[in-house]
C-alpha cells in the first residue's frame, strides 16, 4: 500500500546540511503499524513527508503503486491519506460540525457527525456547535482531530502522537478508541506513539532513531527489545519505562 523508497530529508542549519531522515526504506501493508523511538528521531518528519506537508530531499513515495512524491497535500488527501496533527489547529469561527463535515467530504447530518464525536468519547450535543477555537482544551481538540480522521475513513490514516497532551484520565478512553478503530477501520493505521498500550495493539512496530530505522518487525519480536533498551534508545529512559 505505502512504499517509502530511500527517503532523505535534510534541513539547513547554520549553513550546514543537517540530515533528519537518512535513507528510509519501508513498505507498509499491515493494518496497524506503530512508529516509535526517541524524541528528535525523525518520526513526525516522516509522517509529514507521507502527508505531503514536507517534501523529501531525496527518494520516492508510492501509494497503492502510484508515485505520489510530487503530489500536493490536497491530492494525497483525495487519494486516501489522512493525517492527524500532533498539535491540532484551532480555527476562529469554524465549528466542530463544520470540520467534521469538511472531513467527510459531503453534507452529513447532525446525527452522523454526532456519531463520530461519541466514538471519541465526547458528548456530541455539547460539542457539535462549539467553535474549534481557544475555548477547547488540548485533550478535547485531540479527540475532535481523531473524529475528523474517522469521518474521512480513508485507506491510510496517519496519527502523529495522538496521546501527546492527553491527561492520564482521558488516556485509557483513548486507547479504547484506537482498539475500536483497529477493529472498524477499513484501511491501514500508521501511528506514531511512545505508549506501550498503543504499541501493544500494533501488528508491526518500527523503531526510528537518529533518522534511521533501527528495528522493524512484528510486535512480538520488537516490543520486548524496546522495553529492554533498543539500540539508539536511551537506556536510562528504557529503565524507567520498565
Amino acid at each position, binding site marked *: 500500500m505505502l512504499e517509502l523508497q530511500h527517503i532523505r530529508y535534510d534541513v539547513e542549519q547554520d549553513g550546514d546540511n543537517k540530515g533528519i531522515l537518512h535513507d528510509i526504506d519501508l513498505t507498509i501493508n499491515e493494518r496497524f503499524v506503530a512508529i516509535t523511538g526517541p524524541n528528535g528521531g525523525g518520526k513526525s518528519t516522516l509522517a509529514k513527508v507521507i502527508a505531503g506537508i514536507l517534501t523529501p530531499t531525496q527518494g520516492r513515495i508510492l501509494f497503492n503503486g502510484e508515485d505520489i512524491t510530487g503530489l500536493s497535500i490536497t491530492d494525497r488527501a*483525495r487519494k486516501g491519506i489522512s493525517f492527524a496533527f500532533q498539535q491540532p489547529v484551532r*480555527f*476562529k469561527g469554524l465549528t466542530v460540525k*463544520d470540520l467534521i463535515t469538511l472531513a467527510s467530504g459531503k453534507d452529513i447530518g447532525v446525527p452522523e457527525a454526532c456519531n463520530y464525536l461519541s466514538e471519541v468519547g465526547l458528548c456530541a450535543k455539547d460539542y457539535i456547535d462549539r467553535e474549534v477555537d481557544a475555548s477547547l482544551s488540548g485533550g478535547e481538540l485531540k479527540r475532535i482531530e481523531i473524529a475528523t480522521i474517522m469521518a*474521512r475513513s480513508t485507506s491510510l490514516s496517519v496519527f502523529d502522537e495522538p496521546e501527546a497532551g492527553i491527561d492520564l484520565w482521558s488516556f485509557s478512553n483513548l486507547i479504547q478508541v484506537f482498539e475500536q478503530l483497529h477493529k472498524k477501520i477499513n484501511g491501514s493505521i500508521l501511528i506514531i506513539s511512545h505508549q506501550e498500550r498503543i504499541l501493544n495493539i500494533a501488528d508491526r512496530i518500527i523503531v526510528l532513531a537518529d533518522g534511521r530505522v533501527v528495528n522493524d518487525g512484528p510486535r512480538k519480536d520488537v516490543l520486548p527489545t524496546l522495553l529492554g533498551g533498543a539500540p539508539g534508545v536511551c537506556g536510562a529512559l528504557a529503565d524507567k519505562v520498565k
Partner: protein
Amino acid sequence: MDAIQKSLLEQVAGLHEVPEGAYNIRANGQKAGRNTTANIDIVTKTDKDGIDIIIKPGTKNESVHIPVVLSMSGLKDMVYNDFFIGEDSDVTIVAGCGIHNCGVQSSEHSGIHTFHVGKNARVRYVEKHYGEGDGSGENIMNPTTVVELDEGGYMEMETTQIKGVDSTVRSTTAKLGPHSTLIIKEKVMTHGKQLAKSDFTVDLDGEGCHTNVISRSVARDQSKQIFLARINGNAACYGHSECDAIIMDEGVVSAIPEVTANCLDAQLVHEAAIGKIAGEQLTKLMTLGLTEKEAEEQIVNGFLK
C-alpha cells in the same frame, strides 16, 4: 417594487415579501411601504427627510424593519431616523441598505440613526450593508449611529458589510447610563480598492455600565480598513474593544485603540490581532482534501460567520 429592488431587499433584510410587524421600506429616496402596529408607530418627519419610530413602554417581542434600497445610479440619499424605545420594552430592529448601481455615477446613502433607549429596555439592532451593480459608479454608504442608553438599558448592535460597498465611513457614538450595556459586533469584508472606516466612541458615564466593541474583518485585494475604538471610562465601569482582522493579497488594516480611564474604578481593555491566515490552518484543511483556495474560503467564511 421591481425585481432588482426585491433582490436587494432580500440581501439586506432577508425579506422575500413584506415583513410581519412594523416596517418602513424606502426605495430610491421615496416611501415604498409602511406598517405600524398597536405598540409601534412610525411617523414621517416634517422638518427633514426621515422617520420617527416610537415604541411604547413595555412592548415585548416585536420587530421593526426599516430597509433602504437604491437602484437608481447617481442618487444621493440622506435620512434621519430617530428611535424612541420605551421603558421595559424588548424589541428587534432590522435596518439595512442595499445599492444596485449599474450606472457610471456614484450612488450614496447616508443615514443617521439615533436611539433613545429607555430604562431597562432591550434592543437588538441589526444592520446590513450590501452593494452590487456592474457599472463603474461607486456605491457609497456612510452610516452614523447615535446611542443613548438610560439606566439598565441594553443594546446589542450587529453590523455587517460583506460585499460591494466601495466606500464607507461608519461613525458610532454612545453614552451609557448606570448599569446599562452596549454590545457592538461588526463584520466587514472589503475587496478591490474599497475603503471601510469604523469610528466608535463610547462614553461610559454611568456607574456599573459595560461595553464590548468587537470587530472581525477581512481585507482582500488592495482594500483598506481602519478601525478606531475610543472608550472613555468616566465612572466605575467596564469597557472592552477587540479588533480581529485577516489580511489577504495587498489588503491593509489599521486598528487604533484609545482607552481613557477618567475614573479610578474604570476597567478598560483593548485587544487587536491582525495577520494573514495561519499556514497551519490551510495545511489542516488541505489534509482534509480541500484545495488551498477552498481552504481559504472556508476559513474566511467561518471567521465572518
